[in-house]
């Protein structure tokens, strides 16, 4: 039942979310809401060691939105802006795939569990909301990668 949507990884992240806190040294934050269902997430982005990003979030909403935020915060931890930008694109591509894309586990790690979400148009926004907040906060913070973020900045 709904196994294609509710992967074990998703339920685990929903029940035991990672990365839920605010960030004292944040350079920017982004608050996103899904007005159709009331899901909310705030993502903070700061600078970590060696050019990496520090990312934290708080949110409330359905299992897909909260698990996605948790997976995202784990996945991008310690990575630089260029890598994070590529991850954002890869996750977006997966969500737009309508279930027709075999995700690369080496790149997306736990986030491949959301592949099934792309078959449910009503839930795609749930999975994307934290990633949209991440991108918005990252660009506001100026932690951009010129090669991949140029389109958004213009």
């Amino acid at each position, binding site marked *: *039942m*709904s196994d294609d*949507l*509710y992967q074990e990884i998703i*339920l685990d992240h929903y029940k035991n979310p990672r990365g839920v806190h605010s960030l004292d040294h944040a350079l920017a934050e982004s608050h996103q809401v899904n007005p*159709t*269902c*009331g*899901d*909310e997430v705030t993502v903070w982005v700061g600078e970590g060691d060696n050019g990496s990003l520090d990312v934290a979030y708080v949110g*409330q*909403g*359905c*299992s*897909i939105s*909260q698990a996605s935020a948790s997976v995202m915060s784990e996945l991008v931890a310690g990575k630089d802006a260029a890598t994070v930008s590529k991850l954002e694109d890869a996750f977006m591509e997966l969500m737009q795939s309508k279930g027709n894309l075999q995700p690369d586990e080496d790149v997306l790690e736990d986030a491949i569990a959301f592949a099934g979400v792309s078959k*449910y148009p009503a*839930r795609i926004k*749930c999975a994307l909301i934290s990633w949209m907040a991440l991108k918005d906060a990252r660009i506001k913070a100026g932690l951009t990668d010129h090669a991949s973020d140029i389109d958004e900045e213009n």
Partner: protein
Amino acid sequence: MALNVDEIRSDFPILKRDVRGVPLVYLDSGATSQKPSVVLDAERAFYETSNAAVHRGAHALAEEATDAYESAREVIAGFVGASSDEIVFTKNATEAINLVAYAFSNATDKHRQGIEVDPRFVLRPGDNIVVTEMEHHANLIPWQEVCAKTGATLKWFGITADGRLDMESNPIDQNTKIVSVVHQSNILGTINPIEDIMRMAHSAGALGFVDMCQSVPHMPVDVHATGADFAAWSGHKMLGPTGIGLLWGKSELLNAMPPFLSGGSMIEMVNMDHSTYAPAPQRFEAGVPMVAQAVALATAVGYLEQIGMDNVAEHEHELTEYLLNRLQELPGVHIIGPPNAIDRGSAVSFVVDGMHPHDVGHIMDSRGVAVRVGHHCAWPTCRRFDVPATTRITPYLYNSRADMDAAVEAIVAAQEFFGVLPESEKVGL
């Protein structure tokens, strides 16, 4: 008289289909109802035999189309105890509410320019508009907009813990110009004492508006008997097509209102620098209207009348009572709204401990049970009950006890799947 649900269901082609590989159990009629074949046939037949633009042209089809359109108005008016010159066709109920809200802001604008308008529609700072905390956004935002444009203040009735209007919080006073209240809440199911509220409005010298989107489709309603001055509801929630809503207004008031949308069809006389307007309802029906939809809606009204609105209401009342009892037997499930079926319609909202309403709805859907999840366009009502959203079941005349059972089993399955069912309550499903 008990409804023959099997017979009724056979009139609705969509109820025969499967979803997600299992038979559909449609329990989202509060959002939109399904349509019987006669309604679909009526819309098609109009296009196949009489299609023409109404109220213009002198050819045979134009006459037939105009006759069909105006006959539909008469049928729909009769359904709610109104006369046909009191019924305005709009694109939906939201537009119907906006039409009256704009009468206030447009009249206020004209008054400020020194143009003579009916003083009942002029708002000044210090005046107020009264709604309730259980309004659908459609009966909230238009009034917020009117207040922002005119300087009037928005006030509201609060809600008690069991989902009733808190009559102690009644904000109606001598400065109230209009009171706009929902008849049956689309999220809580509460049926409000609108006769009393309309009386209070009139005692204060205010006009009264009732949002009947969830009442007219589900119970017998006589608009005049409610004491209201205006009411709005939609066609698609009462077995009719989308694209058509209804405004009922007392004729004298409609004719005292400035127009809303302007253009063709709504005029009396047109010059290059000024025009005069047709009497209501034509004044409010600019452009070529939704003729086929009006014809189909009149057919839906005929279908409902044949079954009898008393019977529809009784059937829904029984289902609601049964569903409320079954839901309240489930551990971890909480009703948002009146827990009993007294003065209550069939919209039943609930939350499940440890689960977000979206997840509940999704797993119900995987078992073919279609319900609504979210804030139901009543976000302030959700805030009042401190929930981000609810899952909502809204049965209609084509639903049976078996559908209520399917919904309850789906909720338990969702709890099992998410591991939020107390250990002692686990059952093999």
